[in-house]
């Protein structure tokens, strides 16, 4: 017997929640308990009184599955709103990566040159290393990191995706 899998598409969910203990565990637990995969997750409070947090989740799911995920998230008690940004029209996605490259000589020069092409900033340097800060969509960050592998990459930290819909309207 073989187990069949549905065809999955990428979705970016923006979720606003009450900023209270356990809420992140409830949301991530909902994904793990039902076998849904989380590609990236970011969370920070966004209101002046720190009472509301915004969580951005990137996940792979079929159309039926994403409808179910949204309904299940929406029925969690501390969840205020769930929006599939891909469903809402065009949106902007960004993530930040800090990329540490070590080396000397030509590789070090090439790393700095490529960083300039990608508009990455140097945020720390020694005589044998750089730490670059790069901002962009995930593809751009992926490509930059892939190039740095050839130039002495030693460590990467990424924030995961934050996203917001284009245009004047709020969520």
């Amino acid at each position: 017997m073989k187990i069949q899998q549905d065809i999955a598409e990428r979705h970016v969910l923006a979720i606003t929640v009450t900023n209270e203990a356990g809420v992140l565990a409830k949301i991530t637990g909902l994904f793990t308990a039902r076998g849904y995969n989380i590609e990236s997750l970011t969370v920070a409070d966004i209101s002046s009184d720190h009472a509301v947090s915004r969580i951005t989740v990137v996940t792979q799911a079929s159309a039926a599955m994403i409808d179910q995920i949204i309904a299940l998230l929406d029925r969690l008690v501390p969840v205020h709103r769930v929006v599939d940004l891909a469903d809402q029209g065009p949106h902007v996605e960004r993530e930040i990566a800090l990329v540490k490259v070590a080396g000397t000589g030509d590789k070090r020069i090439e790393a700095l040159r490529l960083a300039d092409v990608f508009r990455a900033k140097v945020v720390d340097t020694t005589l044998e290393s750089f730490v670059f800060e790069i901002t962009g969509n995930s593809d751009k960050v992926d490509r930059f990191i892939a190039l740095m592998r050839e130039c002495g990459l030693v460590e990467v930290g990424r924030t995961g995706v934050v996203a917001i819909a284009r245009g004047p309207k709020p969520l």
Partner: protein
Amino acid sequence: MTEMSGADMVVQALVDLGVDTVFGYPGGAVLPIYDALFNHPSIQHVLVRHEQAATHAAEGYARSTGKPGVVLVTSGPGATNTVTGLTDALLDSIPMIVLTGQVPTPLIGTDAFQECDTVGITRHCTKHNYLVMSPERLGPIMHEAFYIATHGRPGPVVIDIPKNVQVATAIYQSPAAVNHISYRPQVEPEADSIAAAIAMIAAAERPIFYTGGGVINAGPAASASLRELVELTGAPITSTLMGLGAFPSTHEKWLGMLGMHGTYESNMAMNRADLIIAVGARFDDRVTGRLDAFAPHSKKIHIDIDRSSINKIVPADVAIVGDAGRALDALIAEWKAQKLQPRDMGEWMRRIDGWRAARCLDFPESTEENAEIMPQRAIRSLYDATRGRDPIVTTEVGQHQMWAAQHFGFDEPNRWLTSGGLGTMGYGFPAAVGAQIANPDRLVICIAGEASIQMNIQEMSTVSQYRLPVKLFILNNEWMGMVRQWQELTYESRYSNSYSDSLPDFVKLAEAYGWTGMRLDRLDQLEDGIQTMLNTPGPVIVDCRVAKLANCFPMIPSGAAHTEMILQNSEVSGTMDDEAKALV
């Protein structure tokens, strides 16, 4: 205002919320609350013998009254023992509040004595849960928890209260009304979906109502509305296991339960219908059978208070999110406003009568006086003997549960208490305890199997302590019958660990607890035995010895369609392919 201790606040909040009964078991981390409850004038505490039983008793209390059940247990093992009951209540949408003691806040996370991560463990088996870190929060959280447990789709809520929070003092806050910032379940159905549904119902030639536990949860008025809508539209009706009693089993439009052990006429009607009106039911796998063959010719109207139930398994053509009762009332109002008349259902009902003629619930039996008792006969005799006494019936899980669902008729809601979603052996007896506590003057019968009953049999002591006249009717075939039945169907009768070996003498067990015990062996003892049970005051165990190898039919085997039912006289021994074996 004067300050009070957290423990006093818990009790004051219970009083303010109208709680009259708490099922529980004391322990170190919850002693302050037990002290506050000591000789309390308005709250009865029922001491169970195992915390799991407290949760099922609370479910029985809730299911038979419509009010939330309340449980009080200690930290650590007290809390972990509630997990099965919490999950059961989550799956069957039973409103329940479980108060757990916790180690004092400075000790949380230190592996303290009787510490466990209660909110972590119960996160996925509750509708919501709380860890209360300061006494100021206790009042608002208690009120919010009851609101969440009872509004929208009902469910269990855990409040974990560290011992120092129970002892510390603060001013008790009791909100007049809970106005939750984010939890706002949709109760009122939308008018355009009601109009769309009415248009489909009025146009349908072969409609069928498929109703579930949501109608029971919506209160007795919803059951009354369901009856009115069935009369108005003339459509026949079937129901899930959880929905039994919402519609009278004696009505001509009633087809019996549907699904795996449902009637032939229900399942055939679902398969051939051109419109299915699902009300408070969630297309569970026990109902649908093989999904790609489920009700292929029909449109579906799906009424559910939980948006996530809609399109989860079966796509809905019209979705109505809201309370089942409000939705039924809105459908009735719209039907009347349009002055619609029911279509002629003659042809459709004649086809249904053709399926009824299969007499799928008949079973082979001997009428000799010394014949063995068929389990189906035992249920029918119990039903006949209790008609007019309006009994509350609970069950454990297994063959006896399905036979009870098939052969015991229910005409009113809140009389049928069974573990549907989780299928918890050990549910029925404590549920009967809870139902009897809530309804001291009613006849409460637990129909059990000899295997299931042993999962919470310690509650015999609780029954004795509170002098509850619970009648425990055990269909004893010396097998975990449903397991054995599946082994016959799927594994060529290799009976791996399904024999009930080393059974206790149930009559002597009854005597040991101060109950009345009796044993029925032959058909000619059955009716008199049941009468004796009913006429005996106080708790009674009936050890009803039934035909050992009887199986529960009709049955849709796993992986089969509604039209592929096995009837009573079919060949059942065999094996199955891996796809069918992999289904639950």
